[in-house]
Structure formats: structure tokens, C-alpha cells
């Protein structure tokens, strides 16, 4: 039964996995990149990151000291019954998981007026959507400050088209990549509305690397990856070809006058985990 408690327990499980285990698809992409990276310094950085993943896994310590904000997306079957408010139950799970796994508390009470640390990494940032049937899919992302800070959103004119989207993604990478811990996973959202397009870009970071998205999306992703890896920024921003391990794009309907585009940077330690609640 996917009630609020079961969902919170899934969040707790996902936090432990995501903080200390590099996603298998990301690790595989990194290993493949290390084989072909032409820059010696770039290879040295990639080797360090691969070794880092091994140490984190073995010693059960965080991949990165910035263990992030907790972003949660719950897709719940309409036949389920939450039974309780989701926010406090998930916050309790975050509090307990961050202490149990010795993660860093990185949330302040208010962006502007009270920047004192909440001390337990709450609140979680939650979105809830419904789906047919029973059960729930719980996606968790621990989002680092450096990579989220390196993200950007723009409202293009529709006439800018695919070329305009490519130009914006590339410009964002060139301007901001070095602070986002490359090799990156670049999440791109196109369409929907001003507020929703950033969410599309973030959700794109959940899409596994290593297989092409279908149709035109896959073509665009490959073109973008080629452009990004032509910048020379490279691993850790210290020069090389592996600026990104992947670019993932999600598109949506939008207003006749609009072409919203968002880029959400994922770092070399992009941390997401998905748990099915049945």
C-alpha cells in the first residue's frame, strides 16, 4: 500500500543509495569516456572520479560533500490513499536519513531573511502527481548547490526554433560549466510554462545515460552532446573533450507565443534514485 509512510520510507532508502553509490549508467559512461579522453589531465581527473566512486561505495561515505537538497517526485496511483500530509512525513524521513548516513546539512531557513541552517536538511522539495492504478513511483534527487547554481532558464521566441535551443544550451554550458563539476549530465527542458520548464529540465536528469531517446529527441540529444564536448572545457573544467557524459531532453506542449527552455546541470556525481512502492 502506497500511503504516506510507505512513500517516506522509500525516500529514506533512496537517500542512502543516491548519496553513496554512483548511478551504474553514469559510472559506465565515465569509464567509457576515460578510455577515449585525449587530454592527460582530463584522464587523470576521470580516474580520480572513478576511484572516488569505488571508495564511496566501499566505505559507505558520500560521493560528494555537498549532499544537496532533497528533491522528491511522487507518481501515485489514483487508487491509493495517502492518509496523512506528505510533507511532514517525508521531512521526518529526511531528518533521520541525513543523520543515519552522516550527510551534510545544507539547507537554510529562508533564502533571503533567515540564512541559518535548519540543522536537519529539511524541508524536502516535493512534487506529487497522479497516475492510473495502484502503487507509487518515488524519484529522489540529492541536488548539489554548484550544479543547481549553474542552471539557467529563458523564454525564447518560437522563431528561434531548434537552433535557438542549441545556442542557449551551449552558451549556458560555456558560461557556467566549470562551477558545476564536469563531466556533466545536462538536463534540458523545452516547452510547458515558465514555472514548469525548470521541472522538465530537472526530471531529464533522471533519464538513464547510455541509450538514445526515441525519434527527434534522440537526434537533438546527440547533437547537443557533440556541441558540449566540442567546447574543450573537459573534466573538472581543466581542459579536454569529456565536458558532459550525456545530454537529456524532455519536451512538452506550450503557448503559441512561447518557447520556454531550461537547462538544469547535473554534476559528475549526479545523484538520483528511484524506488517503486507496491
Amino acid at each position, binding site marked *: 500500500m502506497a500511503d504516506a509512510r510507505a512513500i517516506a520510507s522509500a525516500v529514506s532508502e533512496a537517500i542512502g543509495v543516491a548519496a553513496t553509490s554512483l548511478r551504474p549508467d553514469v559510472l559506465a559512461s565515465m569509464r567509457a569516456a576515460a578510455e577515449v579522453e*585525449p*587530454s*592527460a*589531465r*582530463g584522464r*587523470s*581527473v576521470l580516474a*580520480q*572520479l572513478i*576511484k*572516488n*566512486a569505488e*571508495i*564511496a561505495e566501499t*566505505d*559507505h*561515505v*558520500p*560521493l*560528494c*560533500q*555537498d*549532499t544537496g537538497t532533497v528533491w522528491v517526485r511522487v507518481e501515485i496511483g489514483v487508487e491509493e490513499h495517502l492518509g496523512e500530509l506528505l510533507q511532514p512525513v517525508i521531512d521526518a524521513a529526511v531528518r533521520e536519513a541525513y543523520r543515519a548516513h*552522516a*550527510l*551534510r*546539512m*545544507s539547507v537554510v531557513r529562508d533564502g533571503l531573511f533567515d*540564512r541559518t*541552517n535548519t*540543522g536537519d536538511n529539511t524541508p524536502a522539495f516535493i512534487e506529487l502527481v497522479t497516475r492510473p492504478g495502484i502503487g507509487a513511483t518515488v524519484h529522489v534527487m540529492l541536488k548539489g*548547490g*554548484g550544479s543547481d*547554481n549553474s542552471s539557467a532558464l529563458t523564454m525564447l521566441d518560437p522563431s528561434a526554433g531548434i537552433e535557438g535551443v542549441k545556442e542557449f544550451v551551449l552558451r549556458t554550458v560555456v558560461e557556467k560549466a*566549470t*562551477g558545476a*563539476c564536469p563531466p556533466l549530465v545536462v538536463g534540458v527542458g523545452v516547452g510547458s510554462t515558465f514555472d514548469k520548464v525548470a521541472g522538465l529540465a530537472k526530471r531529464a536528469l533522471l533519464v538513464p545515460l547510455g541509450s538514445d531517446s526515441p525519434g527527434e529527441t534522440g537526434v537533438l540529444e546527440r547533437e547537443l552532446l557533440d556541441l558540449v*564536448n*566540442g*567546447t*574543450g*572545457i*573537459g*573534466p*573538472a*573544467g*581543466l*581542459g*579536454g*573533450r569529456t565536458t558532459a557524459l550525456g545530454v537529456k531532453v524532455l519536451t512538452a506542449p506550450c503557448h503559441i507565443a512561447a518557447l520556454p527552455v531550461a537547462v538544469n546541470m547535473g*554534476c*559528475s*556525481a549526479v545523484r538520483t534514485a528511484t524506488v517503486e512502492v507496491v
Partner: protein
Amino acid sequence: MTDLVRITLPAGVEAFSGLVAGDEVLLSGPVYTARDATHARISEELERSGELPFGLKGKVLFYAGPTPAAAGRPVGSVGPTTAKRMDAFTPALLEAGIVATIGKGARSAGVRDACVRTGAVYLAAVGGSAALLATHVRSVEPVAWDDLGTEALVRMELDDFPVFVAIDASGADLYATAPAMWRRTEGE
């Protein structure tokens, strides 16, 4: 790229003067963790007294906020945070006697110029390799501002901690020059 260079801290700017942007360095000895909130406080103290507090003169700042101790180590994981957020404070701190900073990412022209004036260097650690970097931390000792939690000023004893020279004392900047070497041009 030259061979690995080993530097033992504390050391004056002379120890860094032979380094060239791109060199790989292994650092041992004490550094002091300081990030956003810590910088605001150090700068307040500097403005008030005209000197760096807590004997920071001649020392190295590491832009980092570690995770709690774990796996039998003094910190679970520790790696660099984005240096440019500290850029507004850095020139004054270098003038006051900080000899090197450790962080990640490109920095302002103001920081480059201050490196040239003072002989200080900016060292880049690899972001996202914090579990590995923590194995090069021998001990930690709180110095001040416990109320800042992970942003407290902490003395961290390093042991062959790997960094790259990102800005050398001549102002050469690896983040500005390295991508050009690997940029793919049209038609390639």
C-alpha cells in the same frame, strides 16, 4: 604538464613561485576551511582590526564544507566548493597574507590580478571526488565559529592532497587557457 610537485605547508609564497598553471601538486600540512559565511566573518574581522584573525596570515584557505566524520576518518567526505562565490572577498584576504586558496571553477580578473600582486596561487581540487579527497585528510581541529555548522573555520591537516594549479603567481589561468587546447573547430 610537469611531474607531480610536493609542497608541505605552512609555506610562504616562495614555495608556490615556481608553479605553473596546469601543474599537479600534492599538498601536505594545515589548511583552513572557509566558505561563504566564514568569508563574511573573516572579512569583518579584517576590516575591524586590520589583520587576519586566528593566525591565518601565511596560511591556505580551502573552500569546503565537509560531511561529518565516517568510515574511521576525521571527515566522511570533503571536496572543493565553487570559488567564484568568494571572489568578492579574496583580493583583500590575499593582500592581508593568505598565500593560496583551494576551490573549483573559474574566478574573476580581480582574483587573478591579486595573485600577481601578492604571489599567491589558486589551486583547483576535483569537484565530486570528496570520498577520495577525504582519505588525504589526516585530522581536523575546530578553530572558530562552530555556530556556522559545516561552514565553521576548521584547521585541516592534509596528506598528499591532490590539486592542480589553476592560477599561478604570474596570473596564468588554466580555466581560461585549457579549453582552447581541446576546442573542436568547425569541420573537424
